[in-house]
C-alpha cells in the first residue's frame, strides 16, 4: 500500500496516495471534500449533463481505502455532499452504498459549507470532533492547535526538468494539517495562492498524492507576488 508516515502533534499518521489520512493508533480513516452529487448540481443549473460517474468513482476509492486500512471509525471532513439537498437526488444505488459503509463502523459527517445539516444516511453529524490531541473540522481556524481540516482542495505544482507536474496534496505545519479533496470532480487551489501561502507557516510541508506520496517543502508564492508589489 502506498503510504507516507509522518508525525503530527505527537501522533503517528499516514498519508495515503489517494488523499485519505490514516491514524493507525485510533483506527481512524479521514477523508475530505467528497462533493458527492456535484455533476447533478451542475446539470440542474441548465448546463450540460456531466458524466454521472463521479459518486461511483469516489465511493469506489473510499471502499478500497477502507478495505486496505480496516478502520473502526471514518471521519468525513465536510463538503461530503455538493449541496445539502442533493443528497435526496443521488441514485438509489449510491445512497445504499453510502448507508452500507456508514452502518458498518463508527462514521462521522463533519458539516461543511456545502452541506450543513444531517446527512440522514447513517452515522453522526457534527460541526467538529475532538479526538485526543487532534481536532477535526471543515475549515481551518486562525488558532489551530492540532487541527485537521479540508475545504481548500490544495494542490501543488512543480516544474521538473521542463515538465509541469500538478498533484493534489496535504499541507502540514506544526499546528495544522489540511487534507486534499478526495472527490472525483473536485478542482484544486494551488499552494502558491496567497490564501494558502498566508495560511500555512513558513516551514510548512506538502505531501503530494499519487502512486507514491512524496513530502516536500510547500511550494509557495514568491514574496513579491504575495505582498502585491
Amino acid at each position, binding site marked *: 500500500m502506498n503510504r507516507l508516515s509522518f508525525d503530527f502533534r505527537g501522533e503517528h499518521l499516514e498519508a495515503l496516495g489517494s488523499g485519505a489520512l490514516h491514524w493507525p493508533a485510533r483506527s481512524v480513516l479521514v477523508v475530505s471534500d467528497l462533493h458527492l452529487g456535484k455533476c447533478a448540481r451542475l446539470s440542474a443549473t*441548465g*448546463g450540460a449533463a456531466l*458524466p454521472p460517474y463521479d459518486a461511483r468513482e469516489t465511493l469506489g476509492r473510499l471502499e478500497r481505502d477502507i478495505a486496505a486500512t480496516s478502520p473502526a471509525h471514518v471521519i468525513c471532513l465536510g463538503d461530503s455532499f455538493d449541496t445539502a439537498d442533493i443528497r435526496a437526488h443521488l441514485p438509489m444505488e449510491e445512497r445504499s452504498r453510502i448507508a452500507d459503509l456508514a452502518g458498518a463502523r463508527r462514521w462521522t459527517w463533519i458539516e461543511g459549507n456545502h452541506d450543513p445539516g444531517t446527512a440522514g444516511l447513517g452515522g453522526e453529524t457534527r460541526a467538529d470532533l475532538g479526538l485526543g490531541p487532534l481536532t477535526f473540522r471543515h475549515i481551518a481556524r486562525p488558532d489551530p492547535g492540532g487541527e485537521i481540516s479540508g475545504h481548500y482542495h490544495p494542490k501543488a505544482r512543480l*516544474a521538473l526538468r*521542463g*515538465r509541469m507536474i500538478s498533484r493534489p496534496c496535504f499541507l502540514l505545519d506544526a499546528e495544522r494539517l489540511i487534507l486534499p479533496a478526495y472527490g*472525483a470532480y473536485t478542482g484544486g487551489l494551488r499552494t502558491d495562492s496567497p490564501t494558502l501561502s498566508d495560511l500555512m507557516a513558513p516551514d510548512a510541508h506538502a505531501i503530494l498524492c499519487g502512486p*507514491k506520496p512524496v513530502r516536500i*517543502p510547500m511550494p509557495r508564492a514568491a514574496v513579491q507576488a504575495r505582498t502585491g508589489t
Partner: protein
Amino acid sequence: MTDLPQKLQRWFDARGWQMHPHQQAMLDRASAPALLLIAPTGGGKTLAGFLPTLSELSEAPAPGLHTLYVSPLKALAADIKRNLRTPIEEAGLNIRVEDRTGDTTATQKKRQRADPPHILLTTPESLALLTSYEDAPRMFAGLKRVVIDEIHSLAESKRGDQLMLALARLQTLCPDLRRVGLSATVDDPEAIARLLARHPDRTEILEADPGPDPDIEMLVTDTPPPWSGGGAKYAIPAVLDEVRKHKTTLIFHNTRAQAEIFFHHLWLANDEGLPIGIHHGSLDRGQRERVEAAMVAGDLRAIVCTGSLDLGIDWGDVDLVIQVGAPKNVKRLVQRIGRANHRYNAPSKALLVPANRFEVVECVAALNAVRARDLDGDPRGPGPRDVLCQHILIAACAGPFDADMLYAEMISAGAYAGLTRAEFDACLDFCATGGYALRAYDQWRRILQREDGLWQLRDPRSAQRIRMNIGTIQDTDTLKVRMRGRGGKPLGEVEEGFAATLTKGDTFLIGGQIVRYEGLREMTVEVSRDAAQKPKIATFMGTKFATSTQLSHRIVEMCQQADWPELPEHTADWLRLQREVSRLPQPGRLLIESFPHDGREQLVVYGFAGRNAMQTLGLLLTKRMEEEGLAPMGFVATDYATLIWGLDAVTNPTPLFDIDRLEAGLDGWLAGNAVMKRTFRASAHIAGLLERQVGGQRKSGKQATMSSDILYDTLLKYDPDHLLMQITREEAMRGLVDFDRIREMAARVEDRIDLLRLSRITPLSAPLFLEPGRVPIKGTADERLLEEEVTRLLDASGLAGIDAPAKPVWRVPW
C-alpha cells in the same frame, strides 16, 4: 450575356475598366442556385462575387437583407466594407452595407436584427449566433444570396462544417437562396463544390484564367544556412537587399516565434531605418491595426508576418513575397505567392528562404512541385458530430424544433449527407440528457420533448449560456502581456505553458521588442523594457503546418540520390556529412538513431510516413517503451521522423517495432495519453459538454484542462462507448492516427531495422529538437523525477543551513 446596369457600367467606363471574363461569367450565371468561382489571388474575385448583388440592387432596392457575405476573418469583413463603398458611392447606388463580427457594438447588433442592411458582412460564428435568435426568420426574410469568401480556407476546418449547417438553416427560411463560393486555386474544386451545394444538388464551377506561372526562386546567399534552427538569421542581409529593391515586401513565417525572432534581427541590421512592421495573431489588436493602417497607406516597405496575413485582405502594392522556412504545403505556397502583384495577368514574384539545410531540400522539392503545378490536398471525411451537437443546441435556442425537420435540414449539408438517423438521434440524446449509459439525472435534462412532439430547452435561461459558447475555434490558453505600471501598454499574448516557465528576470521577444518578465498579476503577464541583445526565445506557437504527403515523397526521393547537383553545395555537404557520421534513410529499411542529448536519451525514427502516422508511431512506441521499463518522457513527430526522449537508451529496437504488438497497443493507447485528451477537450467544448464562458467570465484555461481530463478519464472507465468518446476516436483516427501508413511502413521494412548508437546529435536529427508540439508522456518518468527531486531537496535543505545565504534551489513558476 447579361449587361451591367447603366450606373455600374458608367462607373466601370469612368475608370477605364473592363470586366474580367470571369466577372462577366458570374453575372451571366447569377441565377445559379450554387456557384463556385476559382480564381487566383488578385483576380478581382470579391468584386466578381458582389457584382450580381450590386446589379440586382441598382434601382430602388427594397429594404431588407439581400446578400449575406461570410468570410473567415473579421478583418476581411471590415476590409470588404471599405472596398464596396467605392463602387456604391461612385456609381450613386442606394445600398446599405454593414459588418457584424465579435467586435460590433451591442447597440448596433440589436439594430441590425430589427432593421438589417442590404448587404451584411459577417463570420461563420456570428452567423451561427444570428440563427440562434428567435427572430432569425424575420431578420433573414427575403435573403437572396450568400457569398462565402475564401471558402477553400473554411473547407479545411470545422468552421466550414458549422457554416454549411447554418446555410442549411437559412435555406429552410429562404428557399430561393442562392449560394456563391469564392476560392483560391485548389487541387480539388469538386470537393469544395460538394461542400457548398445543397445536397443532392450540384454546384456549377467557374474557373478563371489562372494567369502566368509565378516567378519563384530560392534565395541564394553567400552565407550558407545553418545545420539546424528556424531563424534564417543568416539570410538577413540578403533579405534586406531585396526589401530595398522592391516597393513592398511581405515576409511570411510559419510560426509566430520565428516571425518575432526574424523581425528582431532584421531591425538590428536595418541601419538605414527602412520602415518595417510585424503582424501576427498573438499581438495586441491595437498594434495589429496600426500596422494594417500603415500598410494600406503605403508607409511600410516590408511586413514580417504569419498566416494572419494569408487570406485575401487587400494590402496595397505588394511586389515581392518572401517565404522564410520550408513552405510545408505546395498549395499554401502558391496562395501566398499570389499575395504579390495584384495586377491580374502579371506574374507574381516570390523567394523561398530555407531556414536550415533540411529545408533547402524541402524548398527544392516544393519548387519542383510548383513548376509541375502539382498541388496537394487531403480529402476530408464526413462532417464531425461535435459540430452537429452544437447545431442542435443552437436550433433549440431559436425556439421549439421538430426533430424530423432538423434531421432533414442537416443532411442537406454536403458534409452530413451520409448522416444516419440513428447517429442524429444519438446527438440529440447527448444534447438532451448527456447520453450516458447510466441514466442518473434525467429530471434535469437540457432539452426535452413536449407533448406536441417538439423539442425545447428545459430552462430558457440556458439559451444565453449556449450562445456564449458558439463556435468551433479552439483557442490555446493564453495570457495577456502588458508593460508594468499604471495603464501599462498591452503588447499581446503568450501561451500559458510558456508563461509558466518564466521567472522574474527572464527575457523574451514580443512585438519585436525584448521584454523582461516581472511577474503575473490577475492573469496578466507584466513585463518591463530590457536592453538585452539576446532574449530567451518566445516559444508561443502559431499555426503548425504539416508537410504534405506529396512533398514528403519528393524529399525521400531526393535522399535516395547518390549525390545532389541541384542542391547548393552546403546542403549537399550536409547530407554527405549525415551519410558519413550516421546514415541517410534508405528505401526498404528503417533508420533509427540513438544518442544522449540535453540530459536525456534520444531516439530518432526516420519513418517518412507523414506527420500523422509519425505521431501515432510516437504514441505507440512510447507506450511500448513504458511497458519495457524505458521511462519515455515524451515525443515529437514531423513528417519524416519521430523523436522520443526519455531516461533510458533503447538498445534493441526489434521488440518495440513488432507490428502486432504495436497494433494491439492501438486499442489500449486511448487510455490516458495527452493527444487523446486534447482531442476530447476540443470536442467536449464544441459539443457543449464544457463551457468556455460562464456568465460572461472566461474560465482560466487551466481549469478547463483539468476538468476535461477528469471527465475523459471517468468516461473511459465507466462509459467508453459514449458519443463523445466515439467522436474523439473518430477525430483521432481521421486527424492523428493514420495507422495504415505505419502498417505499410512495417511491411516495407520487415526486420530491416538499422539502429545506430551515436555519441551525439546528428545533422539530420537536429531540426527535430526545435519542432513545436512536443507531447508529454505521463508515466514512470514522473515518479522517478519526483523521487530525484525529493532527494535533491532534502540534500539541499541540509546544506542550506551551513551555506547561508542559500539561493533558492527550486522555484514554482506562476
